[in-house]
C-alpha cells in the first residue's frame, strides 16, 4: 500500500467533488489505485484564491494513501467537449465512475423548461454520453469497468421529483443497455442505486436514519461491486424491498399515493 501500485488500474472519477465521489475515490486509493479526479473547474483555485476544492481533495487522497492523483476539468453537460476531455487524460482509465448528479427543484422544473433541461442534462444526457464515449474506447481496447451512480428515484416517477426521477430512469436504462450489449466481453457495467445518502445534496433534509447511508457505505458497496463483479448495487438492501413494492403497485393505486 505504501508505494503506488502500478499493476492496479487507474480509476477515473467524474463529478469528483461530490461527497459520494470523494468517498469512492478514497476507497479505491486505499486499495492502491491511482486516480484521475474530474470535476467542473478542475484544478482551479477557490473563490478566495486559496487551494481549489478538487486540488485539496487530490492532495488529501495522495497524502493518505500514497497513490498518484491527477485533477481534470470536465463539464458533464457540455457533450461537444467529451472527446477532448477523454483525450486530455494521462491514459485511458481501467475503471470509470460517474457520480455527476443534480437534484434541481421540482417546482422550478415544472415552471421553467430551462430548469428542467438542466436536471435532465446533468442526470441523464451528460452522464450517459460520457460513459457511452468511454464504453467505445473501452471496446476498442477490449476491457474496462463503467460505474454509474443512478438513483432509486428512477424506479418509478413520483409527483415530488419526477423530472429528476425521469432523468435517473433514463440513466439506469442506458446502463442496463450497455451491460446487455457488452455481456460476454471484458467490459463490465455497474449500476449503483444508493437510496438516501447523507451528503451536501441532502444536507438539511429530514431523512429517516434507517434508510440513509453514509457516503462511506456507498463507497464500500461500489468498491466491492467493482472487485467482485455485480451488475446492480443496492447500497442498503432495504431499498430493494421498498422499490420492489413501489414498482409492484398497480398504476390506479400508485397514482393516488403521496410518496
Amino acid at each position, binding site marked *: 500500500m505504501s508505494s503506488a501500485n502500478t499493476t492496479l488500474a487507474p480509476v477515473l472519477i467524474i463529478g469528483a467533488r461530490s461527497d459520494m465521489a470523494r468517498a469512492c475515490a478514497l476507497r479505491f486509493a486505499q486499495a492502491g489505485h491511482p486516480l484521475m479526479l474530474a470535476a467542473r473547474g478542475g484544478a482551479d483555485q477557490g473563490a478566495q484564491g486559496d487551494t481549489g476544492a478538487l486540488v485539496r481533495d487530490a492532495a488529501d487522497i495522495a497524502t493518505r*494513501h500514497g497513490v498518484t492523483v491527477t485533477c481534470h476539468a470536465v463539464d458533464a453537460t457540455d457533450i461537444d467537449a467529451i472527446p477532448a476531455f477523454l483525450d486530455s487524460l494521462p491514459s485511458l482509465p481501467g475503471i470509470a465512475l460517474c457520480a455527476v448528479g443534480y437534484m434541481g427543484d421540482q417546482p422550478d422544473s415544472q415552471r421553467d423548461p430551462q430548469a428542467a433541461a438542466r436536471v435532465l442534462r446533468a442526470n441523464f444526457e451528460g452522464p450517459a454520453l460520457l460513459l457511452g464515449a468511454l464504453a467505445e474506447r473501452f471496446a476498442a481496447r477490449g476491457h474496462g469497468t463503467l460505474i454509474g451512480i443512478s438513483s432509486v428515484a428512477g424506479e418509478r416517477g413520483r409527483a415530488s421529483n419526477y423530472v429528476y426521477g425521469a432523468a435517473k430512469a433514463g440513466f439506469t436504462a442506458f446502463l442496463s443497455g450497455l451491460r446487455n450489449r457488452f455481456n460476454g466481453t471484458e467490459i463490465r457495467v455497474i449500476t449503483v442505486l444508493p437510496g438516501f445518502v447523507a451528503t451536501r445534496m441532502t444536507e438539511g433534509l429530514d431523512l429517516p436514519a434507517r434508510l440513509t447511508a453514509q457516503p462511506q457505505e456507498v463507497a464500500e458497496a461500489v468498491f466491492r461491486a467493482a472487485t467482485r463483479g455485480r451488475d446492480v448495487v443496492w447500497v442498503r438492501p432495504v431499498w430493494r424491498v421498498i422499490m420492489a413494492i413501489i414498482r409492484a403497485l398497480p398504476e390506479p393505486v400508485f397514482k393516488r399515493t403521496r410518496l
Partner: protein
Amino acid sequence: MPPPLVHLSGWGRYPRRPTRVSAPRDIGALASALQGGEPVIARGLGRAYGDSAIAAHTLSMRHFDRMISFDPATGQLVAEAGVSLGAVIDAFLPRGWFPSVTPGTKFVTLGGAIAADVHGKNHHGEGSFAAFTDWFDLMGADGSVSRCSRDENADLFWRTLGGMGLTGIVLRAAIRLRRVETGWIRQRMIPAAGLDAALDAFDAHMDATYSVAWIDCLASGPALGRSLVMLGEHATLADLPPARRARPFLTPRHRGLTFPVDLPGFALNPYSVRAFNALYYAMGRRKAGAGLVDWDSYFYPLDAIGQWNRLYGRRGFMQFQCALPLDQGRPGLRALLGAIAASGAASFLAVLKRFGPQDSPVSFPMPGYTLALDFPVNTRSLGLMPHLDRLTADHGGRFYLAKDSRMSADTLSRTDPRMGDFAAWRRSRGLSAHFVSAQSERLGL
C-alpha cells in the same frame, strides 16, 4: 437562515447548553461565520468532557478533514484541523508511522489535540502534543490567518496550545509522527499493592516509553492506591512471533460494538464498581509480566465500545483530573484517594500517571503526577468534587480544562494563576469578545 437552536454537551453528556451549530465547508464560509457577530468556538469530535466546545455559535470543523502533505524524511504530516488521530493511524500505520503523542481516544481531531494540548502515556519522557507540533495556521476573529510556530507568532503558538480554542480557530497543523516497526505494543504489567509501590514503580521506570496505572479508588487502609502499573514499548519486528512478522501492521480489527442504551443511574454503584475493581486487580496480578498487545487495545480500550459514555445513564458523568507537583505528589494523592475511598463514590475509570517536564503558559501538565477519575452526575459526586478541588489546591495542584465541566472561577484562579494572565492577554487582544465557550464564561477566561 441561522442554524436551529439545539442543546449540546461534551462527551460526559453534562452539562447541556443551548447553541446554534454550523459546519462551514471551506475557509471562506468559516471566515463569514466569524463575521456573524456572535461569539464562537470551534468544535471537533466533541471529546472534551464538559462545556469546552460549546458557544452561542458552535463551529463544527468536520468538513476540514483533509490531509495536505507528508514528508517521510522527517515524519511531518500537514493536515487540516478536523483530521482525527484515528484517520492519521489508518493512513500511516500501514507505512510504519504512529502519532507521537496520543490521548486515550483516537477520536480526537488535530485542532482539539492542540487546543487541549493533550498528553499521553509517554508524557514523562516525551512531553505533550505541543512537543510534536511544528506549526499551525490560526484564523483570528477578522478572518485573517496567522502561521504560528516556535519562531513565528510564538506568543500565539504557546497560548493556543492548551488555550481551549480561545485564541482563534486552528485551520491546519504540522505534526511529527514517530517511526514504528509494528502495530504492536510490548506491555509489561506491574501490580502495586498500594500507593507508594505504584509511585515507586513509576520512578523506577522513567525510561519506559509509555507508563500509566489503573488505580482502584475504592481500596482503603494499607491497600489505598492499589494499582496495576502498565509499561509499554513499541514492539520491534524481532519482538513479534515469526508468524506475524510478514505483516507487522496487521492487527485484529475491533468490531464496532456500540453501547446500545443508557444504563439506569444505579447500575454503576459502589458495590458493582468494588466487585469489578477487585476482579480486575486479581486478573491483572495473574497476568503480571510481559505480553504483546495491539495498538488499538493498548491506547484506546474504550474506543472499542461506541458511546461508552452511556454507561453512566442519562444524567451523564463528570471527569476529575488534576496534576500535582512532584514534591506534593505522595501526600496529595494520599489525601485525594483517602477522601474518595471514604466517600464511597464509585469511580469506574481511575488512572494515575507520572508527568515529566513541561513549562507552557497555559497547558495542563506539570512535572509530577496526574490523577483522572470519573463520577456519575449525582448529589454525592457533586458534593465530593469541591472537597477534591480543595485538597488539590492545598497541594499545589491544578485542573485539566478538557475534562472540566463544573469547576468554579474561584477554584481556577486559586489553583492556576497563569489563567489570570491568559484572560488579561485575551482581553488585550480583543479575543474575549469573539472566542467564548460555555466553559470560558463559567471560568471567567
